[in-house]
């Protein structure tokens, strides 16, 4: 009996799901007291300390909005 091949599309979707799930888990772990892992807010805040970092992060936020909502 032959096993049907796993469609490549399913592997791709699983890859994205794993990456997103890992980031959610990291955020949960980061919120535990005494965690060495920074939260998203903490590392974004760190990146946004210089003005250029602030401008780039805000530009990235705006690009996400344009990419998903205007296109």
């Amino acid at each position, binding site marked *: 009996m032959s096993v049907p091949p796993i469609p490549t599309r399913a592997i791709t979707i699983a890859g994205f799901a794993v*990456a997103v799930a890992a980031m959610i888990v990291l955020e949960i772990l980061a919120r535990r007291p005494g965690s060495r892992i920074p939260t998203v807010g903490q590392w974004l*805040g760190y990146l946004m300390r210089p003005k250029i970092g602030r401008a780039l992060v805000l530009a990235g936020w705006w690009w996400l909005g344009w990419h998903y*909502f205007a296109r």
Partner: protein
Amino acid sequence: MATNPARSDHPRRWRLVARPRRPAHLALLALIVTGLAVYAWVAAAAAPFSRGALVGVVIPGAVLGVIAFGRPPERIPPPAGLDTIGMSYWVICLAAFFEWEASAWRDNSGPWHPSFTNLVDPLLAPHPVKSVAILVWMLAGWALIRR
């Protein structure tokens, strides 16, 4: 660092100052969130690639840009440094995500290897879902300028 004199002088005094304002603050907050929700609903109705859709994202971007660089709100103090090992977990996850996305681009986002956008776009198609996503995007922008 600026401290609130009412809070630092006397905790009880701070409570007395804060208490009468609280309902007004909550009402204002509810009004702002309702306004943003209405805006998100209207913006989500615009057809993709239309002028309305572009204006729908340009206005929040311009408003938050002016606030961020013109009149920034009180910011949450950023950490002085990041733990290298702790941050490396994030870097690995983000690198894996973007590598996966880049390989979809290289393959020209075929149906066998769709990009993240190809997967998310159909999920955002229903009007209520897109409205909530726009609202979350605007609130995320506000959270960013407080950092």
